[in-house]
């Protein structure tokens, strides 16, 4: 009955019966569009649920004030749950942002009171999003109570942060530490600092102080000549070129080294006498390292620097300054000698130095550094958790053992002897005293190193601007941070 298609009926249509049957094609087109639309809706749902959380965290999104008027900005917590930033209500029923640790966490936690900085900036919209369960949200909405934004749990360790902050005293510079196995950032100190509770009142002074730049997070955004800490890189390049063998290296240090008209002096023009490769590193002998540099293959050096992420973007979830090196096949001998001992035009940020150090400590593998470990809703439910992720192998593990031994020797009988005496763990590292102006008596004090009971666990990088000797000034600061972690 349904398919009564009689053959005797005359087709009115030229070329036959196609037209009626084309319903099948119409059906196909209908389903095609329904399919496309369903995919689009799934995409929109995915965007809303997952992707939007990172997308909206952007300074070009002008909805911060709007959201702040509608809900209570969430808290920022340390790894042990200490409150680093919170929102309190004042007597007039209004709300204000409070930073209980005042200056200690200034740069890393940041502020949200006059623009946004630090974690307050990175997680601006996370703190202003309420992911509490729908029932409590609706009931809050309907009863006129403000919802609480999500809380941000960080990897920061309050004790280490305080130790680093106190150890720096009033010196300019930065301290940054991370767990070499996980990439967790444990403390970030930058000096001079400021009190995030009083940013609004002191804004003009803070913002216009170009001499001290108190708002600048030197740990991430500072760009310094690496000084002798760069000998780690030069040593690595030598190891690579000699298949890890250093036994046949020897050098008679007279306090200076001359090559093709370039003169390199040792720090304070000390003569180190006869030094082998490990001694040169432990004593931080500039003359010997200039000698090593003079033999180095420029193209190979360029590759090594590239692998260590000089002139490259770093895998960091926050703003940082890119490290710079101009060594290449066309570099002059003088440039090569200067760079080999960490002077020249090379610059590096403390966080990058820390990443290289922790890669050495972790068998060449760099873990992606992160500072936000978890997002929780106001009731403590976990909304998202940062995964521990490898970034990749920066250094062939064949060489990391030698580098670690050499860095241990620096502490045992080298420039960082001061920090040999530790309780229950061992420090390894490299000091640096980087000249930064034509006045050769001024130098930045560096220390970068790692420590652990058996295996290296954490790495710390310290820079003190104009601090002088890395061994005397920077290394003891690092030790206080290590002590806070291990004791």
């Amino acid at each position, binding site marked *: 009955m349904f398919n009564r*298609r009689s053959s005797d009926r005359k087709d009115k249509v030229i070329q036959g019966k196609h037209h009626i049957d084309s319903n099948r094609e119409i059906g196909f*087109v209908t389903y095609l569009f329904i399919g496309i639309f369903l995919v689009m809706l799934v995409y929109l749902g995915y965007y809303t649920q997952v992707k939007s959380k990172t997308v909206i965290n952007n300074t070009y999104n002008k909805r911060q004030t*709007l959201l702040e008027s509608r809900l209570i900005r969430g808290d920022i917590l340390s790894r042990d749950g200490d409150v680093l930033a919170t929102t309190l209500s004042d007597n007039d029923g209004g709300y204000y942002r409070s930073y209980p640790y005042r200056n200690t966490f200034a740069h890393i936690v940041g502020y949200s009171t006059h623009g946004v900085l630090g974690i307050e900036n990175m997680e601006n919209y996370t703190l202003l999003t309420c992911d509490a369960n729908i029932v409590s949200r609706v009931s809050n909405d309907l009863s006129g109570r403000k919802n609480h934004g999500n809380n941000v749990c960080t990897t920061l360790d309050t004790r280490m942060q305080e130790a680093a902050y106190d150890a720096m005293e009033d010196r300019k510079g930065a301290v940054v530490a991370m767990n070499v196995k996980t990439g967790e950032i444990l403390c970030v100190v930058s000096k001079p600092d400021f009190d995030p509770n009083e940013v609004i009142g002191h804004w003009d002074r803070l913002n216009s102080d170009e001499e001290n730049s108190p708002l600048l997070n030197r740990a991430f955004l500072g760009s310094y000549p690496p000084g002798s800490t760069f000998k780690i890189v030069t040593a690595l390049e030598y190891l690579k070129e000699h298949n890890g063998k250093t036994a046949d290296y020897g050098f008679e240090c007279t306090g200076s080294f001359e090559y093709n008209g370039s003169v390199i002096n040792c720090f304070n023009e000390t003569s180190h006498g006869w030094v082998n490769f490990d001694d040169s590193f432990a004593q931080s002998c500039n003359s010997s390292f200039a000698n090593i540099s003079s033999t180095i293959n420029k193209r190979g050096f360029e590759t090594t620097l590239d692998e260590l992420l000089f002139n490259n973007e770093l895998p960091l979830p926050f703003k940082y300054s890119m490290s710079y090196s101009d060594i290449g096949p066309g570099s002059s001998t003088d440039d090569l000698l200067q760079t080999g001992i960490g002077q020249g035009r090379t610059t590096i940020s403390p966080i990058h130095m820390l990443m290289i150090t922790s890669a050495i400590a972790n068998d060449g593998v760099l873990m992606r550094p992160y500072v936000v470990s978890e997002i929780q809703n106001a009731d403590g439910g976990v909304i998202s958790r940062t995964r521990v992720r490898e970034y990749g192998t920066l250094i062939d593990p064949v060489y990391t053992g030698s580098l670690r031994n050499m860095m241990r020797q620096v502490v045992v009988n080298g420039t960082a002897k001061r920090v040999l005496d530790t309780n229950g763990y061992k420090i390894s590292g490299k000091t640096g005293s980087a000249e930064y102006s034509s006045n050769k008596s001024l130098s930045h004090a560096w220390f970068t190193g790692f420590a652990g009971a058996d295996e290296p666990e954490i790495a710390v990088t310290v820079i003190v601007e104009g601090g002088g000797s890395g061994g005397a000034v920077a290394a003891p600061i690092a030790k206080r941070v290590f002590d806070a972690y291990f004791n």
Partner: protein
Amino acid sequence: MESILIEICRYLIIIFMSVYTIQCFSVFRYSTEYERKGIYFRQNYFMVMIHFMAFLSLFAQNGDVKYLKTYVMQQLGILAILIAYRVIYPRANRLIINNMCMLITIGLIILTRVAYDKAIRQFYIVMGSATVTIIIPFIISRIRFFEKFKWAYVIVGLAALGAVLMFSTVINGSKININIASYTFQPSEFVKIIFVFAIASMLARSHRLGDILLSAAVAAAHVILLVLSRDLGSAIIFFVVYFTMLFVATRNAIYYCIGLLALAGGSVAGYRLFSHVRVRVTAFLDPIGTITNEGYQIAQSLFAIGTGGWLGMGIGQGAPNNIPVVAADFVFAAICEELGVVFGMCLVLLCLSCFVMFMNIAMKFEDPFFKLVALGLAVAYIFQVFLTIGGVTKFIPLTGVTLPLVSYGGTSVAVTLCIFAVIQGLYIAKGRDNRRPYVPSPDDFRTENLNIVDLDGELNGYV
């Protein structure tokens, strides 16, 4: 107190919209318009309530009496359209009428919120267009010789597009508008309908290769004129409409494949030839990275949707005016921000239910010309919806077309009302032929039931 009222409205609007949307699809469960009557009536109720609560929210926030006046005016206007269709065309398809009025309602709500003056203007345009287009179903359902004007359609269409190319001024890199007195028209929108009629009349009765090539030449001429005017959104719509009609008319899937390849080739050529296409693609690939430049619009749209989230900020509570061209191309982002992504998704499904009903009607025609007309208009409609919603959500690169009936824009509204009216006319014509109201059902999509209509128009599905 106000804030609680606003919150209640916010949730109720989402709930009512969801229920309305579910009903859009549940009508397909029933086979007669009579059985669907209850659903249609409830839909009208939800539509009125959403409109009421949205304006209650706006009024509670601003306390400005102008919102009350606007509300009364808009509500009476929309009800007038609804009732006029019911009275003049008792056999009209009520789902299409309801959805048409619902889309107008949503458009007027969000326009009142983001650009009050534009909302007022839009309201007059809607009322004027609705008054004129209400005659269209009558004409379509009585006059049967539309097929005869084949060459007239072609000439008028090409002439209009040619005029745009020659006389219009460049805005945002595209020549789209023609100014007459103080009014601005977008002829390409109107040509869309004429084009569907032209192609339908060319392909309805003959599939000889020569005729197909001729129709392809006509379609190519339209598309090239649009590309030269740099109205690429319309060019893609014409393109897709043509190949879909060709595919259905010839029942030859190879044509669809050719069309797909040509579309891919055309896209690559467009990318190479036009800097503004490259800008759109750059913005699509990385809106956040290029936020200071190419990506600004999309990034702002994504911020709005993301910040609004599933439930939205509430009408009047967001910051949709941060989004560029929010009243026209980006209206969907504003809707998501303030009314919520759930509401936005319902809106998309509502458009889709219109399309399904259009296609349903196309299937019931045995006359190849009207079948193709219904199909062409349905595809033109839904593909435009796809382009605009896909564009603002970064599903596809932005093409800069409007969301029919919701976005601000006189021509767009008038043309969409025409499309709805033409399809309504076809539906009524079909009903008259069968001396009974035509009854679509979900079974219509089952292939084994697709041959139930006989050539002489007798319906035997009722046995």
